[in-house]
Each structure stands twice: as structure tokens, then as C-alpha cells.
């Protein structure tokens, strides 16, 4: 279980997180929604230690994320970055197998390549892309490669940061379905950040809305439409008028 208690983070004079409390149960798919610039990415980066919170406690299975063996901790996570974050200088298969080619999870090169090709197949890409460079792929293919990299070491917890941003609706649907299938078949805990409501309905077990630096509402995805919260209501229906200022 992932638990955030009273997490604060300020950049300069901009208080992004102002006391976030959130729990994600083991094997659950939690989707965090919220407007642009509300700190959704900062939230998951805080869990991974990429951003250091100013205050608050973040635990995974009861252990403080800032204590203990960092490599072992990060070995439990996979992450799909918003822009893919593929390494330009490495061919696709080495991107996917990055973790399997070095460090504590190191495997023989042939085996690492075979696993990478299998993960590429899992996300709908043929072995012919394995030796290409990321720059030679379309945006949708890069997202899939990034997804393959996130699941390559079969992590217990997977974070997806805006997985469908910049994709056409059909490719976005493909990525959503892949995420749902993979999370279900791996039994992984997933936290997805998005403001794409189609993704929310496709991926989520539970939804949390981040607004003004705090979790405004959280509940099962089935209850989202009847949340009774005017902020959630405005957001999920994409209304320009309501309690959330359109100009921020």
C-alpha cells in the first residue's frame, strides 16, 4: 500500500502540494485527476524520490520511502513518463531492457533482448522495431516502447504520467486498454495521472481529484459521476464555468 500523509511541496513562492493525504491499496488502479499545473506529476515524483517534499510522510508498505535501500525500493517500481523519456542513444530493445542489462537485475544479453522483444510484442510492437532508435518511431510507438520499459522488470507498482497525452483518440484507446490489461494480468498497483476522462474510465478502480494542492475528492470510479462535489463535477464534464477558475 502507498500512503501519503500531509505532503507539502513548494517551488519558490508556488505552493504546489499543500497537505496531500492519499492511500492506494495493493493491486488497485488509482487515477489522479486535476487541472494542468496542480501538482499531479510532483505527487508521483515525490513517491519515487525524484522530488523531495518539504513536509509530510510517504510510505510504501509501511516503510518510509526516504529510508532503506534505494535500489531495492526503486526496483519495485516501473514508470511511464509523459514524453516517453526514452534514451535517444540506445536502440529500442536496450531501452526496454535497460534495467536487465545492468545493476542487481542484470541478465545475460541474449536473455535481456529476448525479454525486451517479448515485452514489445506485449504492447503490440513487432521485433522489427527492436533495433531501431527511438527517434525513428512515431509518438504512439514511443509511448508503447516506454510502456514496455515500464513493465520489463515486472514491477509491483507502476506509475503512468499522462499516458495518452499527444496521441490520437484511437492510439489513446489502445494505450488505455494496454494499461488496464497489463495492470490486471500483472496484479500490479497502478497510479495514473491524467486529465483525459476517457482514460480515467478505462483505467481506474478509484479516482482522486487533486485541486489547490490537496486531494479534493476520492472514491470508486463508478461513484465519480455522482460525487456531489462541484469541483469534480466541473472537471469531469469539462465546463468552463464553476468553482475552478478557467484562467489560472
Amino acid at each position, binding site marked *: 500500500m502507498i500512503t501519503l500523509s500531509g505532503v507539502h511541496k513548494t517551488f519558490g513562492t508556488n505552493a504546489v502540494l499543500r497537505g496531500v493525504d492519499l492511500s492506494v491499496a495493493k493491486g488497485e488502479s488509482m487515477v489522479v485527476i486535476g487541472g494542468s499545473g496542480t501538482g499531479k506529476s510532483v505527487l508521483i*515524483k515525490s513517491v*519515487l*524520490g*525524484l522530488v523531495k517534499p518539504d513536509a509530510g510522510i510517504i510510505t510504501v508498505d509501511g516503510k518510509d520511502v526516504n529510508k532503506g535501500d*534505494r*535500489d531495492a525500493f*526503486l*526496483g519495485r*517500481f*516501473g*514508470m511511464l*513518463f*509523459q*514524453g516517453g*523519456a*526514452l*534514451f*535517444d542513444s540506445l536502440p529500442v530493445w536496450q531501452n526496454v531492457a*535497460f*534495467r536487465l542489462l*545492468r*545493476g*542487481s*537485475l542484470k541478465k545475460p544479453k541474449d536473455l535481456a533482448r529476448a525479454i525486451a522483444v517479448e515485452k514489445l510484442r506485449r504492447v503490440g510492437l513487432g521485433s522489427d522495431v527492436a533495433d531501431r532508435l527511438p527517434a525513428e518511431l512515431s509518438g504512439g510507438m514511443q509511448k508503447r516502447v516506454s510502456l514496455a*520499459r515500464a513493465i520489463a522488470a515486472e514491477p509491483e507498482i507502476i506509475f503512468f504520467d499522462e499516458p495518452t497525452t499527444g496521441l490520437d483518440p484511437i492510439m489513446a484507446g489502445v494505450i488505455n486498454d494496454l494499461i488496464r490489461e497489463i495492470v490486471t494480468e500483472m496484479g500490479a498497483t497502478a497510479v495514473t495521472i491524467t486529465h483525459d476522462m476517457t482514460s480515467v474510465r478505462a483505467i481506474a478502480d478509484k479516482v482522486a481529484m487533486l485541486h489547490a494542492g490537496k486531494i479534493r475528492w476520492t472514491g470508486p470510479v463508478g461513484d465519480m459521476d455522482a460525487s456531489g462535489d462541484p469541483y469534480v463535477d466541473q472537471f469531469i464534464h469539462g465546463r468552463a464555468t464553476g468553482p475552478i477558475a478557467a484562467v489560472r
Partner: protein
Amino acid sequence: MIGSLASLGAGVLGLLAAIGRLAAFTGQTISHLVRPPFYGREFATALLQIGYFSLPVVGLTAFFTGGALALQIYSGGARFSAEAVVPQIVAIGMVRELGPVLVGLMIAARVTSSIAAEIATMKVTEQIDALVTLSTHPMKYLTLPRVLAATLVMPILVGVGDIIGIYGGFLVGTERLGFNAAAYLQNTADFLEPSDIVSSLAKGAVFGFIAALMGCYYGMNSERGAMGVGRATKSSVVAAAILILAANFLLTEAFFSA
């Protein structure tokens, strides 16, 4: 008055903070030298990129500088009938000073800028964050291999630059200024001392360390966007060039002040 003092104080504090950050970054880089894991493949790639692929620019720079130096010494020396010292001055000038400094500055232009731009782009496209989530320390994977490779390969580049520079002077001396080839080489060999060569190679190692470290430091601390990458690249080259020239003065003082 108070406003001026406050500005001055803020400037001094900013400078000290920058020095502190750079010192911490340098210490962190060196500390990874003795802590596994080591990324041999990245080190080998850096050796190739910084060393082998810099040879053409180093060779051309040294060749033309050696030739020009011979012409300058000959025409300048003619003013007090000292044209004959061309081989000696070219040798000492190239090995003690121009070889290491010019190679250092060319490496700052070619390698520092490339490292800073690459790492800064990796930072703004979240590749550095991706490295961390893949249990790979960016300092170990990106910084240490480049800094170590530059420190080890620069003395070789400087040595090659020294030889090619002397050869440039030799060609101009023998083909254009009428020096006897054997006498030119003999004068060069007689005049150079082992300490000249040692100082040249030591300077190379220090300049290589500075050049790669500045590229990594500014790349890792780049701000967002294309402007951030551009600023990091520019700042890295300026900082590397200034630090190389400052280090050259200090090393020359240390080696040759009697």
C-alpha cells in the same frame, strides 16, 4: 548606499553559493570513482567520443599554430638577429603552453558543449528522471564516465598536439625559412626537458577534468526548455574556458616558478 552594499552582498553570496554547488558536484563525482557499480561501456564510449573523435580538430589546431609560431618567431627574432632560435622556441612554446592550452580550449568548444547539450536535453525530456527510476545513478552513468575519460585521454591528445605542433613548425622552418631538417630536429630535442613534457601532460589531465566536469555540471543543472539547454551549453563552454586558462596560470606558476 545601503542598496549598493546589498547588491554587492547578494552578488558575493551568489558567487559563494555557486562555488559551493560546484565543489559539492565535484566531490560527488570523485566519490563515485570508488563506489561500484561502474559502467564500462559508457566509459569506453566516452573515451572514443572525447579522445579519438577529437584527434582531427586537435591535429589541425596544433599544426597551424606550430606553423604560425615558427613564422612569428622568425620575423620577430630577425629584429635582434635571433632567427636561429625558431626550433627551440617552437618546441618550448608548443609543449609548455600552446599545446595544452589550445587543446584544452578546443576540447572545451567541442566536448564540453556537446556534453552539456546532451545532458541538458536528457534533463528537460525527463531522461535523467527515467534513469533514477531504473535504479541507475545519473552521476555514475553520465558524469563519472565522461569526466574520467576526459581526464585520462586529454594527456594523450595534448601529447599528440605537441608533436603535431612541433611538426608544423618544422615544416615551415625547413620548407619556408630554410632551416636544415636535421639541425632543426636536433635543436628541438636538445632544448626540451622532461619536466616540460610532464607539465604539458599534467596540464592536459587537469584541463580534461575541467572540460568534462563543466559540461556535466551545467547539463545536470539546466533549466527547462530550449532556452535552458542553450544557456547551459553556453555557460558550460564559458566556464570551462575561463577555468582552463586560470588553471593554466596556476599550474605554470607551480611548475616553472623558481
